[in-house]
């Protein structure tokens, strides 16, 4: 049963890892604006750099 020590160590490491990821995400401002990214992801990269392929 001493495997529990290993499991505990792993699970806490994973949990702390996610916790640090959360703190970093907040710090980088990911939670400051929770609307714009939801719209932004729907835009297509339809902008054609090459003018010859222009559709409209």
């Amino acid at each position, binding site marked *: *049963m001493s495997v*529990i*020590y290993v499991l*505990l160590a792993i699970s*806490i490491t994973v*949990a702390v890892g996610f*916790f640090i990821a*959360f*703190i970093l995400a*907040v*710090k980088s*401002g990911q*939670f*400051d*604006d*929770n*609307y*714009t990214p939801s*719209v*932004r992801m*729907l*835009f297509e990269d*339809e*902008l*054609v750099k090459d*003018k010859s392929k*222009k559709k*409209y």
Partner: protein
Amino acid sequence: MSKNACFHCGLEADASKIMFDNKPFCCNGCKTVYEIFSTNDLGCYYDLQNAPGATPKDIEGKYNFLDNPKIVDQLLEFNDEDTQIITLYIPHIHCSSCIWILENLNKLNPDINSSIVNFGKKTVRVSFNFERVSLKDVVTLLSSIGYEPYISLDDYSVGKKRVDRSLIYKLGVAGFAFGNVMFLSFPEYFQVGEFWLEQFKPLFRWLMFAFSVPVIFYAAQDYFISAYKGLRSKILNIDVPIALGASVLFIRSTWEIVFDLGTGFFDSLTGLIFFLLLGKFFQQKTYTFLSFERDYKSYFPIGITKITSEDKEESIQVYDIEKGDRLLIRNEELIPVDCILIKGKARIDYSFVTGESKTVSKQSGDKLFAGGKQLDGSIEVDVLNSVEQSYLTQLWSNDVFKHDKELSFTNITNSISKRFTITILLIAFVATSFWLFTDSSKALNVFTSVLIIACPCAIALSAPFTFGNMLRILGKKKFYLKNASVIEQLAKINTIIFDKTGTITANKETTIDYEGLELTTAEESLLKSTLRGSNHPLSRSLYTLLNEHDILTLDTYQEHLGKGIEAKYQDHNIKVGSAPFVGLATDNATLNTTVHVSTNNHYKGKFTFYNKYRKGLSKLFNKLKSEYDLVILSGDNAGEKSNLTKLLPTKTKLLFNQKPEDKLEYIKYHQSEGATVLMIGDGLNDAGALAQSDVGIAISENVNVFSPACDAILDASKFNQIYNYIKASKGAIKIIKWSFALSFIYNIIGLYFAVTGQLEPVVAAILMPLSSISIVAFTTICTNIIGRKLK
């Protein structure tokens, strides 16, 4: 969208007859924007949303102050050798097309590295290469595509504002610890005496301890600080029993695991703090795109054009203006200081300052006050006072603006907390002394148990969740409150004071009556053609009112400043304007705005302008009159008095010619007599009154446009709903009282376990979340029921 709406902005495009690419446009500005977009492959802008644009405004010279590196430096967020970053506030941002076009700015100008929109705040963060493109170019580019940024004195030097994210961190810490502690304490809930579990017990317990340390010392620190502050000023606020409960929980649990007496209550402790922070987070609803703290700085420009002694134009910063400077005020620019008009025709709109919508014409040599907006070409002025000492800005040195309303009253939770805390301490001491005599080994146990179980988690949660939800509901109804305490204050008011112009009257609309000899069709046609050439606001309103006529090409046309206009067509002449100008000796002294007309030197009659009152005004007043004292404080003259007395209930007090300070003093006086005042106003002239009142509501035709500092912003279209909103806030208070009753029941159950000395960690672990969650559910359901009744 109708067939002939402008393809760019959606305005009616029939009259302009501008067609481009088979698409109608209302003006050349819109057409140009379309051209810019289509030549740059940005036509997708129009696919996302119909007619998303705004007509670009003429900004010639308006942003010259951005040439001044000192000003630019203050605005920039980041300034490196070749990259500059600035966050600009753009009021027009309103749809996904806006996001799309603003994030594709680099397609329009390759020297712009990137641009990121924050839709909620209506800002765009632009990073650009300043070797090749200046800030002024960026602003000009944005304006040319109809996204004019709003740069005011308020932005000055606050570019590096820090965002406070500590609540999210604390919530994260508490949530993380709560989840982990719950897992670790699970085996102990069932009290199985299994061999291996017994082996791991100490490890599990110390892990729980480790998780709880950051919760008590970091996540819960606000409660300790607030409790300490409360005790120091001799107030037993709600944070006192919370802090007491939390520290007893932590100390007793640590004690238990150190001496191997039991598992402790780490699960309850972390859960308690987590739920409390969650309530705080929920209540912290803010409308990022609105600002409730505006003072004159949000209206004032940053830079202004100074004319130097060598007759050169130079952009200087507003704070650098000194007495005796010569300034150039362009069309549509705000006058930032008190000054004397030297050159040019001044027509000043003082609506910011006085709330009066009429413009004032001034001759050279007249004094102009800060806060007026020049409407008629450029003028030159000599400065009399610096910005801080000007007439308008001095209002802000009044003490009311430094005073935080939220701190000055005891909220419902804290008022109950005093009795609650005393009762709990009493119970704790009585129970402890009882056990000291019967079984002294249990006494300490009982004492701590009472304090733990009585920790007023449910009480502390009822107000945040009720108010938080109410805030959201009212926000959806376009009634935006600054914070939760406004709801409580709103439920307490007994006097309602209204401003007149812009508040109970609609800003843009007026009704016009004609009195006098009837005008013939030819005369009316001539009148309309004459008015067409004038930019005076009265001419504009009159022009739109008159029937459609063929437009005549006038032979002569002359505008006499401050008097009226004169025109000639064939052998008819016409004079429109003030009474003496048209040749009427005595004006029958009406206080209302009038425009007189004479043709061929014969007096014809006059048009009288009346304010148009908002829809449902008298209905609203009749509903309010039984419960509240009603007052109207107007900065205008008494011209509308007879009209108002007819419309409004007889006991309504009407006061006219009230200066901004008078309004403030009036409210102060009534508050000293025990009135709780709700002030409803709109302009900067009401700012003092809004700050002085217990609740100040600013009415706004367009919530994105600026309103003065206030506690709440109400969309003008919802004006007639005020009564229902006040009623809803009273309902919210009632809900909180009910949920207090509910949480007392939980407390009594818990106290039974505690007093009898049989509080097991598992009981606490069940009772605490159960009470919290049921309170949250109760308040949410009830507020939603109230919310459904609102229109």
